[in-house]
């Protein structure tokens, strides 16, 4: 279980200090799929960086299975928002995907199999020997996703992973992520701007306010699984949840965050 308690993150100090996150508390249970939505600049990327131990919180704690997170935990992988810069231009697509596998799998054949599998999963099986800069933005983003999947983490953090792919590919990748999660039970924490996507994927949607951010509400998504792009999205409940999240975001986007964290409704924190 990943838990964040009263997380605060301020960049810089003195006159130039930027308070990105004011007060965030949330837990992500094992095997849960949590989506985070919030306006641009709300501090979503900042939150993920604190979660994966790249940034030290200014205040509050991040714990993974009870242990405080002080550096990147082995059990976690990330798909960065800045996907093109997170791929190494000097390595082929294959080597990029295989980069984190060296320390997990000793045999080269083992690694090759996983690389191949992950690339096939994102539909790039024939691009292994290309370089990232030979691919389109959307393809690069899929390579970054493949790298996260090949690592087979217990927790996968995804920061707007489908931002630059077309609608059809996006739907395919969403379903891929759902299948992976179904098959492996990996815990997913996904940041997105797309409310439909958040509701479609998640067990819970965490709505963040504008900067300095707090949790506005955690919305439990009680849609049946397995989900289906057409069937799930035509459910009346889907439309209700979607409208509810949209309303929350609209209300918070143009208002400054309240000083105290808003009451958490919905399913909130089990575990």
């Amino acid at each position: 279980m990943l838990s964040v308690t009263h997380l605060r993150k301020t960049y810089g100090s003195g006159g130039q200090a930027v308070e990105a996150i004011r007060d965030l508390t949330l837990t992500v249970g094992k095997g849960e799929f949590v989506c985070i939505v919030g306006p641009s600049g709300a501090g979503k990327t900042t939150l993920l960086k604190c979660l994966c131990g790249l940034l030290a919180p200014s205040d509050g704690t991040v714990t993974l299975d009870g242990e405080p997170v002080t550096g990147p935990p082995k059990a976690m992988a990330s798909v960065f928002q800045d996907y093109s810069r997170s791929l190494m231009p000097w390595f082929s697509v294959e080597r990029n995907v295989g980069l984190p596998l060296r320390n997990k799998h000793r045999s080269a054949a083992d690694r090759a199999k996983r690389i191949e599998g992950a690339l096939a999963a994102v539909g790039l099986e024939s691009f292994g020997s290309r370089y990232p800069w030979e691919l389109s933005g959307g393809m690069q983003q899929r390579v970054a996703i493949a790298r996260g999947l090949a690592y087979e983490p217990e927790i996968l953090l995804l920061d707007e992973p489908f931002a630059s792919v077309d609608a059809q590919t996006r739907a395919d990748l969403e379903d891929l992520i759902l299948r992976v999660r179904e098959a492996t039970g990996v815990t997913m924490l996904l940041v997105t701007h797309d409310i439909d996507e958040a509701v479609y994927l998640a067990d819970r949607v965490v709505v963040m306010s504008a900067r300095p951010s707090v949790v506005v509400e955690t919305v439990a998504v009680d849609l049946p699984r397995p989900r289906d792009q057409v069937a799930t999205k035509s459910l009346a409940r889907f439309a209700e949840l979607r409208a509810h999240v949209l309303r929350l975001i609209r209300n918070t986007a143009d208002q400054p965050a309240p000083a105290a964290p808003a009451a958490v409704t919905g399913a909130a924190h089990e575990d």
Partner: protein
Amino acid sequence: MTPPRLASPLTSVLNFLLPVLTTAALLAIWEGLSASGALPAEIPPVSDVGAWLGDNAGAGDLWTAVGQTLGHWAVALLAGVVIGTAVGGAMAAIPVVNELLVGVVEFLRPIPVVVYLPIMLLMLGATSEVVVWLAAVAAVWPMLSQTFYGVRDVDPVSRDTARVFGLTTAQRLVWVTAPSVLPYVSTGVRIASTITLLVAIAMELIGAVPGLGATLGTYAANGVYDAMYGVIVLTGLLGVVLNAAFERIERRALRWHASHRTRNA
């Protein structure tokens, strides 16, 4: 990125022909001025220089001198690259090292190496060691600053990626830092190579240490001007050839880098 050159046959012929034409024109002017007597006796006609080079192309002495100079160049460059890269990298990566060394480096860097020549000659005599030491010192500075800025410029997203996926320090160095610093180091090597050759020849000349520099000095002192200019032409050629060789290696090693990329669909 530089715009791609048009690859039509005409432009590629022109790209080759234009530099040849300007060179030929300058040589013709030199020849003409000599023939008309406008130039002093210390500047022989270019045809004499060419004739001397032709006569001596097979001369053992000349090639021995070339070999000596290349030997100085190679050892000095290697030492300069190793030391400069190590120190520059350490200064960029480890704040304490930077604080310790930055003052010394800023003080020493602008001092021309020739000022150390007298003391080196006193200590070691007119030997190859003197030339190698001084040329190596000159090569250190461009390597040091290129490596320093290269390491400072490693993309933070690449660093984060490496950290998140749990790469060890050694893996991060080899797979992330080294490749992203390589373009800077490569430029540093080309600059250092030119400087090393220049300093080596200058030190040979001033210190009368065997090599192209000393050969040049001997011809000059004895007034053998066609030979002197022949040696000058030879040093120029040496610089061009070495630079071209490094550019070739760089194009191969940095195929992935934005300045060498070719999209092949």
